[in-house]
């Protein structure tokens, strides 16, 4: 059974640690983002909790275990598992990070950036096509937050994303928090990044709140993507700008720490909805003005 989904749907990433609370509060959300890896490797009880939600609320599918950027062939057995979960969840899309997390013999379990070169982009493009042939819903790539740069990177973030998405037809899952803190940590203009994205490429959005990290070996504080605190206003300002030029299907609040701060989570959902409502009203007003002048 298909369930009507408001546009854009506003929701959270499902976390089994607060699964009970989430199930009791479904009315607050239009969608749940399911991390497919939780269905694959967190045990039968977590998977069955998630599958029990099918039909109760629309879902979107997200992954953390593909490591599309590792310079080895894709793990097709893993993709088959993802495909079978996607069949059960019936999401509008499946998303993964433009990153790598492992190499043979090591798994950092953390998303790492790739050298942004045309050669690497070509390798990723070939892999995206394989993913698209395996998974029966549109594939989206997500921009990650990163702390370091490869010395041979020759393209900007947005050029790299545009090249890969443009050649494959993959959509973008734009993580505005990642954009917000990358811009701060690496000193670039996030608005220029957004302006350089082709209109309509953003199919889903992630928002989250992180922390400021002070370490004695750092010259200045660094913003970290900890998914632990309220979404900063600066990230929501970027969301406003996204909504002017893109029509994402879903806006998902990610929270992985301080999970029991339920009031903060619900307050963030209200703040996101308020931003969406303002942009919608402004867009409607602009459309009305255009219609009146015709």
């Amino acid at each position, binding site marked *: 059974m298909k369930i009507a989904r408001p546009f854009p749907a506003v929701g959270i990433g499902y976390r089994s640690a607060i699964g009970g609370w989430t199930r009791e509060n479904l009315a607050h959300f239009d969608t749940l983002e399911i991390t497919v890896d939780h269905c694959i490797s967190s045990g039968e009880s977590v998977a069955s909790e998630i599958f029990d939600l099918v039909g109760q609320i629309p879902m979107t599918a997200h992954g953390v275990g593909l490591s599309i950027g590792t*310079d080895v062939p894709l793990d097709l057995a893993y993709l088959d598992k993802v495909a079978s979960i996607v069949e059960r969840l019936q999401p509008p899309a499946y998303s993964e990070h433009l990153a*790598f997390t492992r190499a043979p013999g*090591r798994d950092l*379990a*953390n998303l790492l950036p790739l050298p942004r070169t045309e050669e690497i982009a070509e390798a990723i493009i070939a892999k995206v096509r394989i993913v698209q042939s395996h998974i029966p819903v549109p594939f989206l790539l997500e921009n990650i937050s990163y702390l*370091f740069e490869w010395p041979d990177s020759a393209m900007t973030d947005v050029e790299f994303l545009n090249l890969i998405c443009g050649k494959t037809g993959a959509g973008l899952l734009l993580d505005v928090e990642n954009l917000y803190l990358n811009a701060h940590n690496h000193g670039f203009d996030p608005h220029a990044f957004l302006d350089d994205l082709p209109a309509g490429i953003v199919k889903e959005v992630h928002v989250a709140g992180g922390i400021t990290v002070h370490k004695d070996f750092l010259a200045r504080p660094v913003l970290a993507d900890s998914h632990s605190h309220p979404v900063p206003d600066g990230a929501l300002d970027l969301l406003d700008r996204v909504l002017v030029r893109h029509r994402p299907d879903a806006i998902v609040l990610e929270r992985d720490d301080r999970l029991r701060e339920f009031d903060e989570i619900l307050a963030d959902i209200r703040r996101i909805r308020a931003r969406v409502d303002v942009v919608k009203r402004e867009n409607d007003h602009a459309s009305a003005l255009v219609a009146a002048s015709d």
Partner: protein
Amino acid sequence: MPARLLQRQTSLLEYLTSADAIFGDGIDAPSVPHLQGFDLVPLRLEACFSHEKRMEKIIAAFPRTFELLGGDKATLVRDFVAACPSVDIRRIENARQFYDFVCARWEATQPQPSYLRDVASCEFAMARLRGRVQPSQPVASGRAMRFRRNRDAVFLPCAHDIRPIFEGATSEAPARRDLMLAILIPPRTNEPAIFEVPASVYALLVELDNWTGRATLGAMEGLDELISDLVGHGLLEVSR
């Protein structure tokens, strides 16, 4: 010829999972090849973040072990990092790496306190059980029933009665005595529990490794009550 990306990724991950990067020991002169041109300060930050996330997973599996480690904690974690770099994203695999590491360490040197090995073993058993779904059981009655030891239950011979540590009831050291503990998820619950299994009961459970009909077990006095009790605690599975 420039190194292939995979070589560079492997080198990078080796560095990010090294004690040098995590603890800042060799930040000025990393010995890993293929890292020329990288700014090492953000690499060290990346290494710290990844290490902290990994240790959060491990501490979540061994909360009482870490509480009891006391002053040895920092040295032990440092030695663990040097011996066991991260090779798997899954919580249970990181917990297994840590458990194997401490077992080998405590084989060579008696842990302090001495009951730490029992506590760690119990916590690892609980970590392995979490997330499993318990199948519903038919009611254990009638001679047509067959029984089998719960294959998911972990039987742990211990040198201390560590149960009070898990019940949070005492600050006293656990009593020194040899006993068999069973760790399992009881019926209609989601969290692992710990039971003491007397030697005679353990002997019966070992006999019931495969499906066995009630009639085969004979007519020992009180056997039906014992079977019913074991089924109630989840130590025995029932089949019609």
